[in-house]
């Protein structure tokens, strides 16, 4: 069964069409990558799916249920969480409290196992991404790479069925990238379905089984990473045309 199904999604900002007639689907248990050059409409697509922007036309179905134009927090409580491209931590809160905010949400609090305190659960979430040592540090003191992982821990705390990661490797060092790749693989083994937007193709190729290429808001290609690397259209978009 398709977990997420998007049909003919269009979004215009004035004269600019950021997303044009995009249709895609995500099956349960897969990792889908979305790539494309700057301004291809990847982040806009994420904003549309998670309700931060309202589409001009088209439908978004999650588990067969129409979620087009719902409030962001309602979509999260249905089990579709996201992270942001630019990190958005709660700067005044300790790291562990950042995760506990997500555990205060209706879905997050419902999904806490019996006889487990929110604090315990939040600590486990931090351990999963390797931040448990920083647990009492205010989030504003954390390094950029740690904040990226905190973002993911926070999104995971709502126990999403589908997690959208917006450039999780942006601004990370090679070692951090490797570490995060491993924890994303672990998340996948735990049964999370993932959609990843990424510029670092190398990291994405290791993870994704299926890649969708966007260009000027349009879907131009779809297939396995190897196919995409050979696809002429994709090479043209990334490298330019041979004259």
């Amino acid at each position, binding site marked *: 069964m398709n977990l997420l199904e998007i049909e003919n999604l269009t979004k215009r900002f004035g004269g600019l069409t950021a997303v044009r007639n995009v249709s895609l689907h995500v099956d349960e248990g897969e990792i889908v990558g979305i790539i494309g050059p700057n301004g291809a409409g990847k982040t806009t697509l994420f904003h549309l799916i998670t309700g931060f922007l309202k589409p001009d036309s088209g439908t978004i179905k999650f588990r067969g249920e129409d979620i087009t134009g719902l409030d962001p927090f309602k979509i999260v*409580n249905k089990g579709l969480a996201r992270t942001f491209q630019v990190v958005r931590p*709660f700067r005044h*809160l300790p790291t562990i409290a950042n995760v506990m*905010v997500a555990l205060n949400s209706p879905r997050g609090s419902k999904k806490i196992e019996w006889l487990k305190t929110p604090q315990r659960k939040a600590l486990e979430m931090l351990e999963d991404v390797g931040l448990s040592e920083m647990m009492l540090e205010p989030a504003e003191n954390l390094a950029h790479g740690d904040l990226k992982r905190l973002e993911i821990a926070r999104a995971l705390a709502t126990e999403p069925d589908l997690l959208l990661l917006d450039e999780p490797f942006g601004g990370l060092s090679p070692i951090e990238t490797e570490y995060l790749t491993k924890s994303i693989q672990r998340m996948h083994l735990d049964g999370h379905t993932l959609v990843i937007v990424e510029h670092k193709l190398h990291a994405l190729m290791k993870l994704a089984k299926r890649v969708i290429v966007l260009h000027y808001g349009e879907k131009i290609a779809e297939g396995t990473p190897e196919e995409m690397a050979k696809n002429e259209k994709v090479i043209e978009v990334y490298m330019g045309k041979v004259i």
Partner: protein
Amino acid sequence: MVTTYLRRIYASFFTNIVDKPPRLLALLCFLILLFFPVTRPGPLLLFVLTYANIIAIFAASWDLLVGRVGQISLGHALFFGIGAYTTALLYKFYGLPLWATIPLAVLFGASVAVLLGFPSLRVKGPYLALVSMAFPLILTGVIFYFREWTGGENGIWGLPRFFPIEFFTQIGFTYSEALYQQKVAEYYLTLLFLLVSGILLYKIANSKIGITFISILDDELASKSCGINTTKYKLMAFAISACFASLAGAVYAHFLTAIGPMGTLSVTLSFLPVIMTMFGGIGTIYGPIAATFIIQTLDMYILRTVVDVPMEWHPLIFIIIVVIFIIKWPRGIARFVTDKLEDLQEARELEERDKHIWKREKKKSS
């Protein structure tokens, strides 16, 4: 049975209050306020402190809304005025006793906050501040329009006091002594109100809800992406804050026995909690309470009686003192004090730990 229970209370008192210097300091301040009337202060000082008790509730309620949720309200006097006018009008037209009108005023203040919250949530940041500034002015206009009922600029007079004077004369006090004892009783009652509302506000600010409040202050979009219904939480913050502000207004009305738009709805009153919070430390809850006592005694007592300066110089001296404090400690005096105390405690704990380690090393070597 009873002894174990008492022992447990004693132990929790030590771990929760005595071992935490900021709380110990708060307890000491409270004890000073509690035993203050024993020194038989003059009626003016007693009046200033009772008024400070009331304003402290008001300032702390503003701090919860602005310092913790980030919903800047520059018209908080609206809720103060609603509290005062509700209790006064209910007494005037229905003759309800004071213990019924005050809870009704609190409930009415909270429901008005929720109603006004809906349109106010559409605007953010400085625009919300501007919109909220207009509300008390509108209510003042309404009060002037219905002057047959509300008394217009003259206000409403002759409200009942918390403790009627007969209560004291019957015990056997002379009339003048009874008047003084009435003031003392009012002081203790307002102090009790302050204690209860201060603890409640502090508990709310540091609870699960409080964490969510700060998440909205820091980043509303991120909070939404965590599945938090931010609208609900913001309205909740408006309602909680308005509850305590209306409580302060209602208590004020029965303390002064007369209210008017100048005392309860003025722009000055709206800005009072802003000054207190900036002075005491935004987002701390206890900061504005401490600042209220400092500023009110300074402004209304020390500069008027202790130091004999001409009336015209008061605002200038007052402004200079406040500005110096804000330059020196921009995060507020309460934060400064608690930070210092926590540093001291940390140093002490480290020292103790070092001693243990040292002992262990000694044993090993011997």
